[in-house]
């Protein structure tokens, strides 16, 4: 187990290194002088000179990277020329919103997917299974931006529920009830997408597991159906589910920007889009770095959970 974790950690460090190089190099992808890119065209010669000194822009790329990564490791992602706030501070206010959104949506998705997959898998091709499979397949083909637009149309406009439409976001600190209301539509949208994936993966694996010999063996012990489903079938079937969840949650962190943007919820995605449209490249770079590392960390965490659920994984 320890060796397995150590090996995975080594891979993790390697990947994070590659990500940092990629994020660093983004600035150089832009045409023109990096100082202009970071400071804008109207910057004074003094400010440009200061930035050159700070980032070592005259020196070779490798040195520049080392200087930059040194700053990053000390929590210095630079100061946005446009908002004149440190990039890290902006990220710190935005990130918790994403985490709350992801947490709510995942609780909803799992709470729906697990019991329904258990029921559907007990009678494959039964009425419930067919209905749920067809429904989930249809939902799988509807992009989140359509779901959110239709939800806004229905809930905020047709039903006229306040606090649910665009630009109604209220922070958790100021009023948690209104906060939950304002996060209802994006949470549901993200939950629907996750639910569909989890349901399909778990159902397929449960059906396979339920045909295994050890399930017949568990029946022959005289155990009840409920116990067989939860104690014997669920755990071995949840390995792929956990892997999928890791990828999916990473995807929500990286791809949640659409719902955030549509409803003006100031999470990382929204901030990223705003930074792109205002050419705030240092902020873009910071968010790309943080989100990428976050995605990798989430995947790592879920890989680790997988190896706990199925101890064979860590011991080959």
């Amino acid at each position, binding site marked *: 187990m320890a060796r397995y974790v150590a090996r995975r950690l080594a891979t993790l460090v390697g990947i994070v290194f590659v990500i940092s190089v990629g994020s660093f190099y983004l600035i150089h992808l*832009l045409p023109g002088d990096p100082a202009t890119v970071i400071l804008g065209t109207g910057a004074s010669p003094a400010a440009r000179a200061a930035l050159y000194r700070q980032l070592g822009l005259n020196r070779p790329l490798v040195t520049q990277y080392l200087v930059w990564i040194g700053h990053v490791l000390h929590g210095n992602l630079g100061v946005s020329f446009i908002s004149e706030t440190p990039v890290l501070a902006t990220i710190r206010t935005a990130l918790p919103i994403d985490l709350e959104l992801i947490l709510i949506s995942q609780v909803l998705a799992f709470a729906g997917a697990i019991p329904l997959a258990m029921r559907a898998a007990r009678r494959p091709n039964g009425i419930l299974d067919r209905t749920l499979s067809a429904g989930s397949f249809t939902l799988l083909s509807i992009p989140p931006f359509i779901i959110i637009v*239709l939800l806004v149309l229905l809930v905020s406009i047709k039903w006229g529920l306040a606090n649910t439409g665009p630009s109604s976001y209220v922070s958790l600190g100021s009023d948690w009830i209104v906060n939950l209301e304002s996060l209802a539509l994006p949470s549901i949208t993200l939950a629907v997408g996750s639910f569909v994936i989890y349901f399909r993966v778990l159902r397929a694996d449960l059906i396979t597991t339920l045909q295994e010999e050890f399930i017949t063996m568990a029946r022959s012990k005289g155990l009840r159906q409920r116990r067989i489903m939860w104690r014997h079938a669920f755990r071995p079937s949840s390995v792929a589910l956990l892997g*999928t969840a890791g990828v999916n949650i990473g*995807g929500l962190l990286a791809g949640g920007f659409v719902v955030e943007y*549509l409803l003006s919820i100031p999470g990382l995605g929204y901030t990223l889009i705003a930074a*792109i449209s205002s050419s705030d490249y240092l902020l873009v770079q910071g968010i790309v770095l943080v989100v990428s590392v976050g995605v990798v960390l989430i*995947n790592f965490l879920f890989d680790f959970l997988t190896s706990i659920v199925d101890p064979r994984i860590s011991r080959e």
Partner: protein
Amino acid sequence: MSDPAVDLEVPVDLATERAPLGPLFWICVAWLGLNILGAIFANVLPLINPLAQDYNFINTGPSLHHWLGTDDLGRDILSRIVYGSRVSLLVGSGSMVIGFGVGMPLGMLAAYRRGRFDAVVTAVMYVLLAFPAIIAVIAVLSFWTPRTLLKIIIVIGAASIPLVYRVIRSAALSIATREFVTVAQVQGARDSRIIWRELLPNVAPIAVSFLLIGVATVVTLEGALAFLGLSVNPPTPSWGNMINESRTILSQNPWLAIFPSIALGLFLLSLNYIGDRLRAHFEVAEVKL
């Protein structure tokens, strides 16, 4: 030795029967074909100019003049949907041409050769896979100005290469290790011949179903990029930017959101369903994009 399962099994020739494609499959194929034809022949079809503004019909619902209604500038929604499918289809197929054009030969070669070539390429691809593709696409597209359709296709296509590689390699690997490939090798067939005649036909069904699901994913991604203003620039219609533009006047004219959503939803559903049925038909384990 007796096989554990034999006693309970139905005769072999029954068990290996392929899943039928079913009528819904062909309906989806027909719908997809209709979409493609519409996109190709949009100029020839008796459609109103998608950019023409009809001031007599601003923000109207479906009518005889404008079957699916008009938007806030009096432009015909039906026409814009048909023209908008061009962007989706171009981005979807173009980027998959790049993704499969690079990822598929690499994956098949790696699976066939194995050894050091496989080890190196696979390692590189897995590192690339760890980088969240969508963030990479957004970052590169926002930095790489000015944006054109070609650049969008290139960026998405490049981002899909590692995914294509992974799927094709694992599919080819399961075939390259089978006996008939060894037999061909022993008989002295050239490598290129084995890859073309033995490997490719067996990988093809998996590749096709993954290709369709890949196109669906890219079309969704293009829609999302359009929302962020990272896709084609207005007034060129695309399904994504049509839905995006509808948001501001959603309460006055919901049709503006609903029709392109239905068009996009049915298009994606057809692609996914065709891909899923083909996969089941050829008995391929489910792969994730």
